[in-house]
Structures are given as C-alpha cells and as structure tokens.
C-alpha cells in the first residue's frame, strides 16, 4: 500500500479515500486505548490550538471535539456564535480570519448551511479546517465513528484486534440506512465511507425523504423496510430533521413510525447479528422504539465513545508532524 498523505482539510469523506479511512481508524483504535488509561491524556499535540466554531446548536459534537483536543494536550478556543461578534454584524470571513490570527492551527466548523466549511477553507492561510457537520452535506467524523464501531463489533465476534481487520471486513457488508436521508449530512458521509470501503448500501425512506436523483448515488433503494431489514448486517437509523422542515414531508409522525420506524415488531425481524447504529440525538418512539434503542444489538453509546477517539485521530492526522506520527504506538 502506498503511504497515505493526510489531506490539508477534512471537508468530506472524499478527502480521505479508503487509505485515509483506514489510517484514521487505525489511529482511533490507538487513541481509544488512551481513553481507557487512568490519566487519559497524551502530549501528542501539545502547543497546538484548536478552535471550535459552532454556528448551529450542537452539544455532543462540540464536546466530543473539545474533549478529543484536550486529550491530545491541545489548547481549545471555543467560539460561541450566539454571543459573538457575528451578532454585531461581523462577517463569517472576518470571524475566521480573526480566529486564525489568534493562532488557531485547526478550525472545527459546524454550520446549518451546506458548504460553509468548504468556503472557510478558501479563506484560511495556515489553519486546517475540519467539517463538524454542514447543513445537509456531510458529517465526516460521525461516519468514521460509525465505521469504527461496526469494525469493533465484528472484531469482538471474531475474537481479534479491530485494527487487524483493516478495512477488508467492510467488503460486501450490507448496510441499510433508514429515515430522513434527503436532509441528512450523516447519511451522505456514511454512504461515501461505507461504499468507499466496499460495503453494499441500501436506502429506505418515504419518497419525500429520499435524496433527489438518488439513481446517481452508488446505492440501492428498498421500498419495503420489513423485507430489507431481514437482509442486512448493519441498520443505520436517522432522525427526522424537523428543524429542516422535514415534518411536512410525511403526513404524520405516527404514519412515519409505522412505515419507517424501527418498532419492536420490526426489530424482531432482524437477524441477531445485525448491528443497529444511530448518530444521535435519538427521538425514541419516532424512528426507534425505546426498547429497541436499549437492545444489545444497539451500539449507540459506543458510537459516542468512539466519536472522541475518531476526532483525536482526525486532529492528529491533520496537525501532527510526520515525526510525531511515527511515534504513536499502534495496537
């Protein structure tokens, strides 16, 4: 395998490719080990400054990035859009340039408008830009956390170390993504990540919540969830994004749940090996029944834990010098 060269920014899963995903997952496993230490902190990125610019409400992703940065001994600048100079009329570009002038080495950006991190990446001179979720476009670190989680479960079943599986375990893996795919940035990153690794991805959603021109996506589309759910290795549920107007895309929540929710009845159709993922926040009773969310097959909490490890890996990939990278202990 050719040596992987880290991209300048992480705006899309496409910036990583299969080698990049493999590298990020490998690093994440190493950092997951750090998290289990008594003092879960390493000096890998001491002196680096990570700024989180969140223009859209988010608790878990921001905390996850900040936690990841601190465990790598970065200094963290938290930019709160609600109380910031943006309220006084400062432009996004000026804000980003000010943050960079304060010495930020990486800028993690979350925005309700698709493409904002791509625009920001054109305005920075030195800092690296990490997409923390943009509109309905992408959420690459979430997709990486999902892949990492799925691989861990597969590795445990086989009794091997996760990293020893590489990414070959995704080859031919059947992944079913269910729910509000049209508005979901997680779905776009998941589709790119899973298909890049060779998985077979199927989407299932009401016609209003399938992405437009879905035939241009490298996926299949399932009409009947009951049939599709019996034939999958991973089922990824997505939240109905009512803040993006998707409430009007279905006649009622009840009808949505009956057709596309993972109800207890539907969960009983799953093979017992099928892994249930959800990027959170979950709306129990809508896309997933409460009992199902707590089933053993559900890996929702592990996805959150792995989110920190994956974000450590991404920060490290983008910010570490090549010397430091060689010094990281694997496995």
């Amino acid at each position, binding site marked *: 395998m050719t040596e992987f060269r880290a991209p300048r920014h992480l705006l899309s899963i496409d910036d990583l490719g299969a080698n990049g995903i493999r590298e990020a997952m490998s690093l994440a496993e190493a950092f997951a080990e750090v998290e289990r230490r008594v003092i879960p902190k390493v000096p890998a990125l001491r002196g680096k400054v990570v700024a989180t610019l969140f223009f859209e409400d988010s608790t878990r992703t921001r905390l996850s990035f900040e936690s990841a940065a601190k465990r790598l001994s970065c200094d963290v600048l938290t930019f709160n859009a609600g109380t910031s100079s943006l309220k006084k009329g400062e432009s996004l570009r000026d804000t980003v340039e000010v943050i960079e002038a304060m010495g930020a080495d990486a800028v993690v950006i979350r925005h309700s408008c*698709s493409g904002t991190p791509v*625009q920001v990446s054109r305005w920075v001179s030195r800092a690296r830009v990490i997409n923390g979720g943009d*509109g*309905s476009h*992408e959420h690459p670190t979430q997709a990486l956390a999902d892949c990492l989680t799925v691989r861990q479960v597969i590795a445990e079943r086989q009794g091997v170390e996760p990293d020893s599986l590489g990414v070959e375990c995704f080859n031919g893996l059947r992944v079913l993504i269910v729910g509000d795919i049209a508005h979901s940035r997680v779905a776009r990153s998941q589709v790119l990540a899973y298909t890049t690794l060779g998985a077979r991805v199927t989407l299932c959603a009401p016609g209003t919540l399938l992405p437009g*021109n879905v035939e241009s996506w490298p996926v299949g589309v399932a009409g009947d969830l009951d049939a599709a759910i019996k034939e999958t290795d991973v089922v990824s549920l997505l939240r109905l994004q009512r803040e993006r107007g998707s409430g009007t895309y279905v006649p009622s929540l009840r009808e949505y749940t009956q057709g596309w929710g993972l109800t207890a009845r539907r969960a009983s159709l799953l093979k017992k090996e099928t892994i249930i993922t959800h990027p959170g926040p979950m709306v129990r009773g809508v896309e997933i029944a409460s009992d199902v969310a707590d089933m053993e097959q559900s890996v929702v909490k592990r996805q959150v834990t792995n989110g920190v490890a994956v974000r450590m890996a991404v920060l490290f990939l983008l910010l570490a010098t090549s010397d430091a990278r060689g010094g990281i202990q694997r496995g």
Partner: protein
Amino acid sequence: MAEGPLKLCVMGGTLVDSTGVRRGDVCITGDVIVEVGADLEPPAGSTVLDASGCLVTPGLVDLHTHLRQPGAEEAETVETGSRAAALGGYTAVVAMPNTDPPVDNGAVVAEVLELSKNALVEVGVAGAITVGRAGERLSLMRELAALGVKLFTDDGNGVQDGGLMRRACEYAAGLGVTLAQHCEDERIAGYGVMNEGVWSSKLGLRGTPAAAEDTMVARDISLARLTGAKVHFMHLSCASSVELVRLAKAEGLSVTAEVTPHHMVLTDDLVRDYDPVFKVNPPLRGVDDVAAIRRGLRDGTIDAIATDHAPHSPESKQLPFDDAPPGMIGLQTALAVSYDTLLSNENHPSFSQLQEFFALFTSRPARIAGLSAQGGPLSKGSIANICVFDPDERWTVESDSQASRSRNTPFAGRSLKGRVRHCILRGEPTVVDAVALR
C-alpha cells in the same frame, strides 16, 4: 467660430444589421446617421473611428439589467451600470423595477429617468406588475405607461397568483404594453438555491427543479391565448420551457423569450465548491438544458439574449451559499461570451449567421422593449446608436477591472475571443478603443 454639430465617421468596418451584411463606412452628424456606404470620404472636421477588421452593428439593447438605483447603490448605480453597458457595446438597457422602493408608481419612474439623464446608455424603465412586487394587486400600470413604460415585470419573483396574472394580461393588452415574466412557481421551487439534479443531491443544497419554471411558462402561454396579451418570458433556463415557447410560437401566440449568456454556457457542476458567484436565479442547469437553449437560439424560438446583469456586493457573495443573494453581472461580457459560444467555432460565419446573431442583441430586443431609436438599421436618417465589435481580439475577463461597482462575474479568468472596440450613443462616442470616455 460657430461650433456645428459633432461630425463622426466610423471607417473600414463590416456593417451588420437587419438589412444585411456589407462593407461600409458610416458618417454621423449630430445624433443622426447622414451617410452610409463603401469608401466614404470623411467630411472636413470630423472625428474618425477606425473599424477595420470590425463588425459595425446597431448599439446593443439589454432587456434585463438591474441598475440597483434607487436603494442598493453599494452594488450598482445608473452611472456605473451604464458605463459597464457601454463597454459591453450597449446603447440601451431596460432597468428592472425591483429597486427599493420598487418601480410601481410614476414618482419612481421619474426618479430613475432623472438619474439616467447623463447615463452612457438610453435607459428604458420597466415597471412592476403588482404594487410593491408583492403579487397582490395591480400597480398603476396606466400611470406608468403614460410615462413611457413599455415593459412590466415583477422580476425577482414571478406573479404567483394565476387569477391576478390573468387580470394583468387583460389590463396590459388594453394598454398595449408587454408583460415580462420571471418564471418560477415558488411553491414548487421550495427555497431551492441551485438546480435540482445530481449536484444538488450530492452537495446537500436545496434544488429548484425545471418544473418550477416550465409550470409558469405553461400557465402564462394559456393566459396569452386567453387574453391576447403580449407576454415575454425572461431568462429561460431549461429545455422544457424552450419547447413550450416553441409550440406557442408555432400556434401563433404573441409570446417572446430571452435567455442569458450564462445559461447558454455554464452548468450546475460549477456549484461544486459552494462559491456563491455561481448562485443565480434561475439556477445554472445541466448540459441538456444548455444544448436546448442553443438550439432555441438557432431556430428562432428565442428572440433575444439578455444579461440579467445583477450586481451584488463582494461581502454578500461571501455569505454561506444558502444566504448569499442570487445573481451575476454580465453587461461587459455578454456579447463576447455569446459570440465565442455561438459563432467563433465557425471559421467564417455566413452573412445570415452574423445577421441572426446580432438580431438577438439589437433589433429584436429593441422591438420587445419598445425602444424606437434603438436596434438599427444602420441607414441614413437613423439615430446613431452604434457598436463596433472586433471579433478577433482575445482578452481575459478580470473581476477587478469591471466597470460595475460589483465583482460577481462567473467568467473571471476566462479568455474570450471578440471585444467591443467602440460604442456610440446618439452620435456621441461613449467608448473608444475599449475605454469608456466618461
């Protein structure tokens, strides 16, 4: 010494107008063409403009310019917009009424006309169809028509209410004015910010389907049939709309249509980097739509090429893609982009090709706009509105060197073949050797 009227001669060019294509010189006294012919001798005391190697045409007429005055002077003024127009070969533009306040009463018409007195082009003022462009009740169309308004549009928005549009058609037919529609059913468009297609799906941007446009084109063709009104379709962007207009014309309805240079050249994949300079309404579409627009231009379905010159400040074009205003500037690039696209592949465009091409910029839009002193022909007794275009000069578009107050050209960095050398407004040179004189 008594100063007579200015004498001007345009020497050595090839004349292209509705009467034909021929080698010829043009002599002007005051604001009137006094002589046209081959190998004229410039009268004593006349200024001579060299047109050798150039096409000499009637001054261009833009059916669709946003001059932004009054209300958005940070983006454009009549002065800067008309300078950009003159540099692009125009001697007339129709100013869109979506100003602040909008052109929905006589006072605003008078204000725009007053601002335009010293402009570098003739400014035709378009009026709003509805009060405040709010789509609820008709504007004072008779009052506006009495001040010379010939074209009415709520541009920026289509008239959503079909019943109100029917009344507008009936009222306009009675006044003998034309309704120009921005074709967009807003419910179907659904706050889309780009073309709905493969790229919007990948980029996670809300799309506007072609159906949002052709639905309104179809409705207004029916209303033109019902009322006999003259309806002009603005900036058509998709294949299905072009086909509807083709059928309506075959039926003999009094409908006309324009397209923009950007819709005949650019496609929606340009949005891939989320640069709002490529955000425009209607949005850039796919390759099949571009091909259909070019076909419509060749077969006469499309009557005019119009710029939809829409200046926006650089700050506003650095907002997130969803929030940035739609629009592109185009006055300085329209002719060259169109010539480069439609004719420059021809080694020697035929006379009829040249004639048809320039009709799209001159006689046809002049007729739609009702501007009687514009559009030619280049003959004795005509008002001297003239464009001199060098079809062989190569130049590179630079966003920083636009005369417009704004920089939002989608053609920045492009090398174009063909450039306006001189422009003459009512016998007065406004541009000489590609430099505006004021």
